[in-house]
């Protein structure tokens, strides 16, 4: 039997509920009736002895957490004494950080802003410094939580509390204070076509901007002078592309066809922030005007996105007719398909035709073919 590690932490509160880390039952061990009949201690390998020695000395602090502080091996091994504990869960990996999670109040605040104050996800994201995907996810999760509470389904509240004591948390700001930003919101994904280094000579007299660099990376011919002169700043392109995403130019043919790489100002999640910044540089005094213009920009962007979503939804509904027969437990969804020479091909084996193929071996038992669902409809 391994040596029992005696917890030095005694239950120090009124009820066992007070601290999720209170380890009162662990203290039973001292009262356990001894079941050892022989007086010789059990055999232990050297490694096991060393491990329990470590767990009893250096590793003893890892057994229980202190609320509000991280408790990672790195702190013990490297003896880090920083506020809130070490940020590195793995002592050998300095590039992985334990990052903050949203606190319960912050989550509820986000939910309230989106559902009650009817703010758009984009606006909330900019206000709170939280990625748009995360804001949307939080709204989904909080809504689900509310539903489950209403239905009386079991919740894991003590578990949630313990986790929030163990990991770093981004708190909700007090009234009047500025909300601390949770994460960078303008992440630019590295495009695969920028992987290659290209040597591209440019005459000194020519202005070579991000827009031109994107064209070079995607192998598109240089813009003519007229169109180039119209673009005073790369962020001018953002609005046009937002309105018509299909207006991005294509280069190459067949399988090699690709869209021209757009400048960072277009590809970041919040392009309107660049316009705001430009306004600030150009007219540093007109503060209120700038804020108004910014609000309008966000509003316009939201409207465009909303319209696009609605159009996609309408298109999806157009393609299917739903029938609910009175004598059936089920609904029937009828989709339209096209059977023609174009879809079936000259031999009737075209992959666009409806139905399973004839005369083609079934590949669903082959190696490397994914046989489980690849997506679950939400």
């Amino acid at each position: 039997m391994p040596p029992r590690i005696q917890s030095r932490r005694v239950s120090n509160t009124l009820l066992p509920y007070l601290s999720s880390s209170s380890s009162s039952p662990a203290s039973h061990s001292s009262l356990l009736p001894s079941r050892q009949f022989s007086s010789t201690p059990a055999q232990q390998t050297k490694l096991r002895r060393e491990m329990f020695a470590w767990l009893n000395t250096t590793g003893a602090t890892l057994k229980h957490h202190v609320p509000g502080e991280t408790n990672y091996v790195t702190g013990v091994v490297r003896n880090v004494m920083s506020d809130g504990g070490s940020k590195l869960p793995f002592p050998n990996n300095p590039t992985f950080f334990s990052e903050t999670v949203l606190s319960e109040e912050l989550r509820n605040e986000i939910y309230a802003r989106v559902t009650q104050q009817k703010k758009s996800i984009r606006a909330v994201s900019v206000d709170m410094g939280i990625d748009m995907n995360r804001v949307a996810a939080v709204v989904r999760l909080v809504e689900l939580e509310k539903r489950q509470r209403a239905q009386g389904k079991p919740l894991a509240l003590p578990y949630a509390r313990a986790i929030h004591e163990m990991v770093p948390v981004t708190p909700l700001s007090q009234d009047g204070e500025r909300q601390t930003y949770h994460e960078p919101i303008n992440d630019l994904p590295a495009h695969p076509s920028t992987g290659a280094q290209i040597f591209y000579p440019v005459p000194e007299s020519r202005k070579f901007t991000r827009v031109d660099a994107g064209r070079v990376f995607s192998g598109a011919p240089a813009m003519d002078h007229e169109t180039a002169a119209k673009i005073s700043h790369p962020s001018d392109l953002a609005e046009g592309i937002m309105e018509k995403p299909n207006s991005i130019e294509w280069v190459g043919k067949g399988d090699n066809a690709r869209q021209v790489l757009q400048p960072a100002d277009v590809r970041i999640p919040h392009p309107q922030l660049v316009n705001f910044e430009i306004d600030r540089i150009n007219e540093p005094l007109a503060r209120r005007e700038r804020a108004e213009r910014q609000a309008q920009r966000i509003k316009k962007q939201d409207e465009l996105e909303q319209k696009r979503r609605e159009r996609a939804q309408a298109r999806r509904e157009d393609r299917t007719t739903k029938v609910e027969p009175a004598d059936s437990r089920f609904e029937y969804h009828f989709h339209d398909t096209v059977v023609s020479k174009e879809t079936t091909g000259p031999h009737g084996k075209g992959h666009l035709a409806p139905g399973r193929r004839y005369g083609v071996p079934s590949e669903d038992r082959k190696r490397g073919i994914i046989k489980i669902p690849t997506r679950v409809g939400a």
Partner: protein
Amino acid sequence: MRNRATTSLSRGKIRQSWSKYNLYNLSRFRSPPTANRTFFQQKWSAKAISRAYHGEQVREGQWKRMFSKRIRSVVPMNVADLAADDGSLVSSGRGLGLDSEDKKSRTNVRPMPFTQMAFAPLERRLDVAIFRALFASSARQARQFVIHGAVTVNGQKMRQPSYLLNPGDLFQVDPERVMYATGAPKNKFERREARLERKKEEKEEEATAEEGEAKEAKPEAEAKEGEKENTRETLKALMAQAKNAMSHEVLPAKRKQELRGFQKAVRRVMSRAGSSSVLTDSLENQFSELTLLLKGKRADKKDSKKSGKERRATKDEDSAAAETAEVDAAPGEALSEAFEKAAKGEEVDTSELTDDEFDVLKRALTQMRDNPIDNSKPYATPWRPRDYMSAFTFIPRYLEVNQNICAAVYLRHPVARPGAAEVPTPFGETVSTPAYGWYLKRRW
């Protein structure tokens, strides 16, 4: 599938697990030596070490097909930089004298740890994501949860642990399983208690089955009473639990004392309720009322933060002994008093109690409701985290987790950014780079 994922001390491999053996292995891990070893040997051992952690439940061939040499990365853009410069300053000739101080500082960016992302495709797997969201104590356990049907993806039951999550997928694990996986296990006395209780219930069931016919006559009258009695029943049940927990000899004296105080408080409230029948309000109402009161109190006193710090200090091990006596003595009174007043719907007299006591009271009340003693659970109750859990708790940014309902959203694929990689891996670049190199060269 046989579990080869043992955390043996002699091999010293690191696994996706919260066991203390694994913790010890993690603490003493050193990167393998490279001196006097061929490049092939270095890559081989790096691969072996990192595969023992990353997707050890995935067959090698399966992982090789998943591997992608393309690594996702992002650069956080500074809008001020984008606005100030359209790119022409960076590309302008060096001889123009346009170089500024800023430009130099901007080139001083941290490198992207690309090879640390070598195992990023595995993080898409459902079982790994469940482990990362802290819903299971090991990837193997997460896998079992999926196979046993305790996991839903987007509201549909999903039984394939190898399901690759798509950005936006919401997965949810049965909270009971999560509590079991992350909670401390029962000791043998608690197990025995549960066993006895089960036997007793079985006997009672038999008895009620015999009496069943006789009782059917008057369920209507009972239903009417039921609503009123409901809250009383809850309190009664709570007290019974406390009594139950006290009844066996093994409890340490301190804990017994605590429970007795709690029992007393409940009894007082119950006696009040019997006379004035105010208890038709649910327990929930009392809690919310109390919480409101406490908030009002906190607003009055600006120095609540300070007291919060003191509270943390009480948890500190060294000062524990001194504090316990005080806390034990006073809040016994405080709790019962507040309990009574809340039950009667009166204004609680806030002046008598200190901030500390209020905090204690409030937390005790909510915890008592959320974390009851229940012998039927497969984990030790009241729930507390398992030992050595805190050394492994971190939530990567590509997941958004709601612990209350044990649900999480897979936001996006993990990415590398300057100086940081989002794939949680215990190895440094001395291991991950040769491992990445091993899979880059296609020799199959």
